[in-house]
């Protein structure tokens, strides 16, 4: 389910907003047909609020934006990749709980 609380980005915006963004960034690669993506959406919303100003959290629809998922070898969703200074810090695949996602985000701060 698409969330309104988290910004959606496209392939075209990826470099400027994520790789060259001011803050570390967590990208939630998702698609509308993916149940587990829907499962973690409420937690992603909460974390976006909790980490505001520390980590930017965004979503990318892999159906509409095939280039970036291809570049990062994504073959499963949800995949969440944490970027800092244009580099991948760490990533998680699959629907996990809030505590694991919090631990991932803390790696950026």
């Amino acid at each position, binding site marked *: *389910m698409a969330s309104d609380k988290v910004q959606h980005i496209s392939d075209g915006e990826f470099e400027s907003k994520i790789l060259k963004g001011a803050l570390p960034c967590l990208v939630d690669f998702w698609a509308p047909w*993916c149940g587990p993506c829907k499962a973690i959406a409420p937690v992603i919303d909460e974390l976006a609020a909790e980490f505001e100003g520390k980590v930017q959290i965004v979503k990318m629809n892999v159906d509409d934006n095939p280039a970036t998922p291809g570049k990062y070898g994504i*073959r499963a969703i949800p995949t969440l990749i944490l970027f800092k200074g244009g580099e991948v810090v760490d990533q998680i695949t*699959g629907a996990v709980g809030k505590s694991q996602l919090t631990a991932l985000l803390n790696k950026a701060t």
Partner: protein
Amino acid sequence: MPKADYQLVIIGGGPAGLTAGLYAARARLKTVLLERGALGGQVLTCDWVDNYPGFAEGVSGFDLSDKMAAHASRFGLETKICEITSLDLRGDVKTIHLDDGERLTAQAVIICTGGSPGKLGVPGELEFAGKGVSYCATCDGPFYQGQEVAVVGGGNTAIQEALHLNKFASKVTVIHRRQELRATKIVQEKAMASPLIDFLLDTRVQAITGGANGVTGILLEDKSGSRSTLAVTGVFIFIGVTPNNQLLPLTDLETDEYGFIVTDTEMKTSLPGVFAAGDIRSKSFRQIVNAAGEGATAELSAEHYLARLA
């Protein structure tokens, strides 16, 4: 009556929990349903459900989840998205600690924590998770457009998901360790009729192999002990469920040898005021309709228990 925040706390929002919640809301019990992700449970990851009564045309797992959640919420069921850190289910008042520091108390608890996909436990499985190894064809199938993939398992889920992968992959090989598939005949017939689905029966997966770009193949061994390699870029594993019991106080609750909770026919566990329903229960058959039915039974049992406390 012992004092508590809630008469009933339901842990888990799959079909069992949502049905228990629907019944509890209609019974006007002060109830909260706790869920760590989204309402729907494993059904959310099912591509298509053709055996849930009332849905004569079939229904997507996604839509069925939504409808079950909407049904319970129509009668005012309170739900909370949170993670549990610990539980004390002994005594008249049950205590549930949440990750945000909150502590809930309840007179009765229904455990509907469900199951997670079973793991093969072979080399490469963990290493290539998300890089070719998948437990959700609905989620990951579209990444395998025009590629050759394997499905491991012979039950309903395995064959149903093989049929789903059929829409994307150029070839799907079903690998099952027994000679006979366990899937319902009508599902088997559909799969057998597909020119894109092959079967390797009496065959076990020994290892999943690959490189920096993910899975490239699987190592197989048949009944005679002869080994072979199958070149695939995706391995979809559907070999049953493991219990989501990690947070449960297993020393206080009777479980079977696999860690599923033992109940009687009224869904009572070994602890008074604690009930279990759905895939977390020790049982032979795990179906959505069973889970829903058990959720209803568990709630009615809980009502009966609460009435006697009063």
